[in-house]
């Protein structure tokens, strides 16, 4: 007998299948290549299935049991299947009417496979250029090599997750413990959370991931000590890498995007750090939801459908960790575009976030806070200023020490600043600047928290690297831009600037 690998795959499928079906509703996601579509699908699946259960339990009193889980998984799956059938029916109908194959309706309804997406036009535009084609082939081979290496690392993470029960710190202290309480109670409003006397850490932390754990355990009727829920967290790693690749490919090209994804997969902290893929912390899921929302909002033309998808992902970020609300607001602010289309997309993205914030406020209103930092009170006490300056000398050395640890980062933070300096001219582009600002979001949240916290050194020691992880998607996209600039400089150092952008 081997570890319960099949069970783990089933646990992932519980979210991936409905989420993948749901991508059918969003043309921008539907037209992406299969792996990237699957990554967004997985994130949407966790957001809708676990988020739906969270809402049903709190607002409707629906017990968190097998029937509810199946219903929550079936709803998006059926919606996606219905959308797929309708779309195909439209295509068949237009074909049966004998429509001209070149007519806008039939051409627009079913784009040829592989031609959709931002790279299609470029592929055709450069088809006749021999040197470009050779470079493209080299880039393609590099991307394939990176994909193979990253896939092996992801499989290793999945294997580890299916072999060992949760054994990390915060996972057992907070997230997995909460999952056990709400599973036993059958509700997200478990008495143990609402009773002030109960000894429980961070009782007001949002419960999206614990609800996802409960969904898996209920559907598979698993032993509470089984490592099955860890599969959910392991699957966030390939999702993260594919979102990085997706966002970076649009702005930096295939080779740099693949290197960015591999650089993330190779960082030991991303894999086995406190908050990484082999833990049951919520930092990696938050990085995925925040990053995927950003990529959808910053990529392509502003469309309401992409706004909805991004809004669902940012709403999931709100329900994943407390700082998710701040990051979702930052993502919305950074991706604002003027004009009617921009406003419509913004409204579509903001609506789920606002609804979820109201829902989250309603849920936590019934839970007395204890064993947690009360940041609103600390902020009201007026400690932010001058703490934001005077505490710097306390916590910055801790941050630098953490980033310098070879065992945690293998030199990632020695390499990244040099790349940013060398490729700095790429960072002047407004899109790169927005990603850079988005990457600064989580570290700024950390900075503010350390400035008001009574023991900033201790807090920085245990949380700083997790904030860096939360910024992974925009940060690596920015790095990909810088690397693309570096390659260009190294490949053609003496070429005339006029011919460089041919």
């Amino acid at each position, binding site marked *: 007998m081997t570890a319960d690998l099949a069970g783990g795959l089933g646990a992932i499928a519980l979210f991936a299948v409905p989420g993948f079906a749901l991508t059918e509703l969003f043309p921008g996601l539907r037209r992406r290549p299969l792996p990237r579509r699957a990554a967004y699908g997985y994130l949407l699946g966790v957001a809708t299935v676990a988020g739906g259960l969270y809402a049903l339990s709190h607002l409707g009193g629906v017990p968190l049991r097998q029937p509810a889980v199946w219903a929550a998984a079936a709803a998006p799956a059926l919606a996606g299947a219905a959308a797929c059938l309708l779309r195909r029916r439209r295509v068949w109908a237009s074909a049966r009417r004998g429509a001209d194959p070149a007519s806008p309706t039939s051409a627009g309804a079913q784009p040829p496979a592989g031609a959709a997406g931002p790279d299609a036009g470029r592929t055709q535009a450069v088809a006749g250029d021999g040197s470009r084609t050779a470079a493209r082939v080299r880039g393609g081979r590099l991307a394939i090599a990176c994909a193979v290496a990253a896939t092996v690392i992801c499989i290793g993470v999945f294997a580890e997750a299916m072999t060992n029960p949760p*054994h990390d710190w915060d996972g057992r202290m907070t997230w997995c413990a909460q999952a056990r309480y709400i599973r036993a*109670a059958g509700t997200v409003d478990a008495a143990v959370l609402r009773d002030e006397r109960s000894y429980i850490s961070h009782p007001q932390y949002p419960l999206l991931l614990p609800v996802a754990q409960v969904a898996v355990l209920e559907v598979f009727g698993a032993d509470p*000590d089984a490592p099955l829920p860890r599969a959910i967290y392991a699957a966030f790693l390939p999702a993260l890498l594919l979102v990085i690749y997706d966002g970076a490919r649009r702005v930096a090209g295939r080779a740099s995007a693949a290197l960015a994804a591999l650089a993330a997969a190779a960082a030991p902290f991303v894999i086995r750090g406190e908050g990484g893929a082999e833990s049951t912390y919520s930092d990696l899921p938050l990085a995925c939801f925040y990053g995927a929302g950003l990529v959808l909002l910053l990529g392509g033309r502003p469309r309401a459908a992409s706004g909805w998808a991004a809004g669902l992902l940012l709403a999931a970020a709100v329900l994943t960790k407390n700082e998710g609300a701040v990051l979702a607001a930052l993502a919305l602010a950074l991706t604002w575009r003027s004009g009617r289309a921009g406003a419509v997309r913004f409204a579509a993205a903001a609506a789920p976030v606002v609804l979820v914030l109201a829902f989250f406020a309603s849920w936590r209103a019934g839970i007395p806070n204890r064993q947690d930092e009360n940041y609103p009170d600390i902020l009201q006490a007026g400690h932010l200023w001058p703490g934001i300056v005077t505490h710097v000398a306390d916590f910055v050395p801790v941050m630098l020490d953490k980033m310098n640890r070879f065992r945690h980062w293998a030199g990632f933070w020695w390499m990244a600043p040099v790349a940013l300096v060398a490729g700095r001219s790429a960072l002047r582009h407004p899109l790169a600047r927005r990603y850079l600002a988005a990457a600064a979001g989580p570290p700024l949240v950390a900075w503010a928290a350390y400035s008001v916290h009574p023991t900033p050194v201790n807090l920085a020691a245990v949380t700083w690297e997790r904030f860096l992880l939360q910024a992974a998607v925009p940060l690596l996209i920015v790095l990909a831009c810088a690397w693309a*600039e570096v390659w260009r400089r190294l490949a053609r150092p003496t070429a005339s600037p006029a011919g460089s952008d041919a």
Partner: protein
Amino acid sequence: MRAESRHPSRARFATRARPGRVPAMAAAGLLGLYLAVAVPKGLWRAGGEVADAVDDHESPDQARRRLFGDSYTDAIDEIRRALPAGEGYLMVEGGSGMLGGTYWVRYDLAPRRAVYLGRLNELTSAQQVRRRLVANLRHVVVAFGSHKPPRLYDRFRFLQEIDRRARAGSAVRGGPGSDR
């Protein structure tokens, strides 16, 4: 944004002077070095994890024993049998708070509700403990550091033990199993 090139790295290429090649070579070299060190390590580790998973013959209980030790797992299982899932208990921190002993025991005993009573070395008399009681729970679990087995007491026995130890002038240190 409308008129911008999709590739930021190309956008200002025509209008800006190129900086020297040295920073670019340094960046490429460091990236290569980083990947050369980190990727093989990651692949090697992943290979080991996959081999372990394929050869894995453990039940969840055996995996717990491997990770947390036999004595800890036995103690947890014994407390789980003694305390029904719906029953709460009083939690006492018997070791250093820095080791997270109460967190691990609370997780392993969940969904049983824990009510924190305090640190063992701060509980100096039965009277003081009674003043701290906020819930009428019949059992006390004393958690120690990582991998050290927790101990289950009847509340009455625990209070007696606190008084006895206070009289003897020492901390509670009952033999394994003797006070359950």
